[in-house]
């Protein structure tokens, strides 16, 4: 990056996302938001050093089998074996290399290995539902897992979550931190799910749905889904001083 000067720092700047990209914190259809969303307006935080940097978490965080959720136990888990792959990209389509990707999910019957999940689908002794990996030099990642099941919850009458995999990514800066959920194409449960439908912009909402990827299926082994995760893009270099920018 540019050299420091006596009284100016040249920092990257991360573009704010268009209105409607992210869900409003107050989303009454998802009842759990109601006692948890801040009621006071958010205060604009200028992007300074702490915000344009972030933890670079890579090697050492991930074990050899952490990206294969079907090989973490003595035997294979129940369910449809799938490959989930894609790229971690910034808003300009550049792959983000050497960056941590974490996932967690329900088993094939829609049950999480969590003490609080007690709906009557069996736990699978061969499935933890947790994976981690590091993106390669082009931002690519892949996991082998099983397709998670849908499951009921208490949000509304006869409420079911569409099948999904939770994704957590860091990108390269605090401003790029993102936790999302990956969905599967043509899920019939979308219409009644307030979490999926919390995204105001229809096109943005569709970006959470993975693409069935026949080209990456493996004959007699696994189906494949492609899911790119896009975090905020950055401007190449911007003077930190607003007045300078306008001159």
């Amino acid at each position: 990056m540019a050299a420091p000067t006596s009284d100016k720092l040249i920092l990257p700047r991360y573009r704010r996302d268009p209105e409607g990209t992210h869900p409003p914190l107050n989303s009454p259809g998802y009842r759990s938001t109601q006692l948890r969303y801040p009621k006071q307006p958010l205060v604009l935080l200028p992007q300074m050093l702490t915000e344009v940097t972030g933890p670079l978490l890579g090697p050492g965080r991930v074990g050899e089998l952490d990206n294969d959720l079907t090989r973490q136990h003595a035997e294979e888990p129940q369910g449809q074996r799938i490959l989930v792959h894609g790229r971690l990209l910034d808003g300009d389509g550049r792959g983000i290399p050497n960056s941590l990707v974490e996932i967690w999910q329900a088993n094939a019957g829609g049950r999480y290995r969590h003490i609080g999940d007690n709906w009557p689908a069996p736990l699978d002794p061969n499935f933890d539902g947790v994976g981690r990996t590091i993106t390669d030099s082009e931002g690519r990642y892949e996991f082998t897992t099983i397709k998670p099941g849908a499951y009921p919850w208490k949000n509304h009458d006869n409420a079911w979550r569409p099948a999904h995999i939770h994704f957590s990514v860091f990108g390269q800066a605090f401003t790029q931190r993102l936790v999302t959920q990956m969905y599967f194409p043509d899920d019939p449960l979308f219409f009644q799910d307030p979490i999926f439908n919390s995204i105001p912009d229809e096109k943005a909402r569709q970006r959470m749905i993975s693409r069935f990827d026949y080209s990456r299926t493996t004959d007699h082994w696994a189906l494949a889904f492609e899911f790119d995760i896009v975090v905020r893009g950055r401007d190449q270099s911007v003077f930190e001083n607003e007045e300078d920018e306008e001159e």
Partner: protein
Amino acid sequence: MTTPSQTVGPYLAIGLPWEDGPAVVPEGTEGAVWIRGTVTDGEGNPVPDAMVETWQADPQGRFDHPDDPRGRVPGFRGFGRCPTQPDGSYEIRTLLPGAVPGEGGAVQAPHIDVSVFARGLLNRVVTRIYFPDNAEANAADAVLNSVPQERRGTLIAAKTADGYRFDVRLQGEAETVFFDV
């Protein structure tokens, strides 16, 4: 083209906690402090299924990151992560950050950026921890000064025997100031 945010849901505890998550620095590190607090909801009840993440400069105000224009200083992780317990509490062991350059030659008071994730939060909420020991620097801090005065106190940790207390009130009385980054 950004991918939308979604809630971590109720079961983040199976996937996100790390054994060394709360340890920004290892046990026995000289000068280490504990930052502890509780996450509460709009009725003042503890939030037992949240996760708190912290990001900060080292004691010299530097970052182990290539975009620090003064040059990268390797060695200090700067990152902490702690899921909340059934009583809503979290804890992070770290070193106090140094002052960090701000805009136009100004200096920012020492601070820690915080993200809170939880079921019922469709996106993370972001806040900052400041420290009561730095009254003068806090008074001159541009970010603190951009916050309405009567709410500023929610961003300043309280001194404890082995560090600081920083509670996060998601909603309601004395609601924590959250930032749009």
